[in-house]
């Protein structure tokens, strides 16, 4: 059957086998798109899952009678879902920590390579050693290291230090309150749910890795994660009202 026939048959029968056949045929698009968005602080596995779910939803929404190719329809749909995913959760949670960790690994790898070869390594060599892209290494290096607060922000400044020009840190008491609220909310979780939180948000493992450690399927991890976040949201909202 060609695409048009496949979609028409699925529309007429709702047969999951036909839907799966379509999904399998176009799963490569999910993979291609997921790869294009790697390097923004979210692992490929997670992006691939988001893209695959968008593909699944897209198959249900696609209308083959409108004369548009499915690949033309599904690419912006998946791209939109990936962007929503980034907007909703990735950057705030993952990037700063990942950058900080990568900087430490970079330093260690650079020292190792220098010891082995007797010369200072290039970004490419460090990237190969750590199994990340060269671009990620260069961006991390650009992100800057530790700077003294007594230093001046720029050469032309009139003697002002970072200490004097940076805005004050957020209220420490508010931070303690927030931490208390999160700790209380975490107490409402089961042991299994806590383990998932530790793997996903503590160790920052991908859903696939978390699933392996917990001995469940990735789909299970995804469902549990959604449930946990919803549970925490409700608990935290309640504690804010109180």
């Amino acid at each position: 059957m060609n695409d048009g026939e496949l979609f028409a048959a699925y529309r007429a029968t709702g047969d999951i086998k036909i839907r799966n056949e379509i999904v399998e045929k176009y799963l490569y698009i999910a993979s291609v798109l997921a790869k294009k968005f790697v390097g923004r602080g979210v692992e490929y596995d997670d992006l691939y899952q988001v893209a695959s779910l968008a593909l699944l939803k897209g198959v249900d929404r696609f209308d083959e009678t409108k004369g548009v190719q499915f690949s033309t329809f599904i690419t912006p749909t998946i791209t939109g879902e990936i962007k929503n995913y980034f907007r909703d959760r990735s950057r705030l949670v993952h990037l700063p920590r990942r950058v900080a960790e990568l900087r430490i690994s970079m330093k260690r790898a650079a020292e190792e390579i220098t010891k082995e070869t007797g010369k200072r390594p290039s970004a490419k060599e460090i990237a190969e050693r750590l199994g990340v892209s060269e671009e990620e290494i260069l961006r991390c290096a650009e992100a800057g290291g530790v700077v003294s607060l007594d230093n001046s922000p720029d050469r032309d400044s009139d003697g002002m230090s970072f200490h004097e020009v940076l805005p004050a840190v957020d209220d420490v008491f508010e931070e303690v309150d927030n931490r208390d609220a999160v700790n209380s909310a975490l107490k409402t979780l089961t042991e299994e749910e806590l383990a998932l939180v530790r793997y996903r948000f503590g160790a920052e493992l991908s859903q696939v890795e978390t699933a392996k450690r917990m001995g469940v399927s990735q789909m299970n991890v995804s469902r549990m994660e959604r449930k946990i976040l919803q549970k925490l949201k409700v608990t935290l909202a309640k504690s804010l009202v109180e």
Partner: protein
Amino acid sequence: MKEIRLTTPLSGELMTTVRLTTGGVCSVAGLSMDDSEDCKVCVTESLLLLMHRGYNAAQIAFTVENGLGVEIEGQNKTERESAGQEDEISAAILCALAENAVLEKKDGELCRITFRFGLQA
């Protein structure tokens, strides 16, 4: 208005350099981190599209004015490499991520790609 031009051979090993340069220009233009990342994807996809059509080099012109305008033109065309399904995806990504993405053709062949990223209110 600021204009920055970059001429680059179209080869895989220079993509990182182009992406990093694009990131720097996006920063000058005041784009958000998300838009900067999207712009980098669009520049890379544009270069791949031109590469697959046999161009050996490209000139990228960035115009910083109320956001960032990007114009990428293929140069030094030889034989067409390949234009498979991935090219279709690349074009769709461009249209999905950027504002006013235009893929201009000359004699039926893609020769120039333009798009822009505006400043968010």
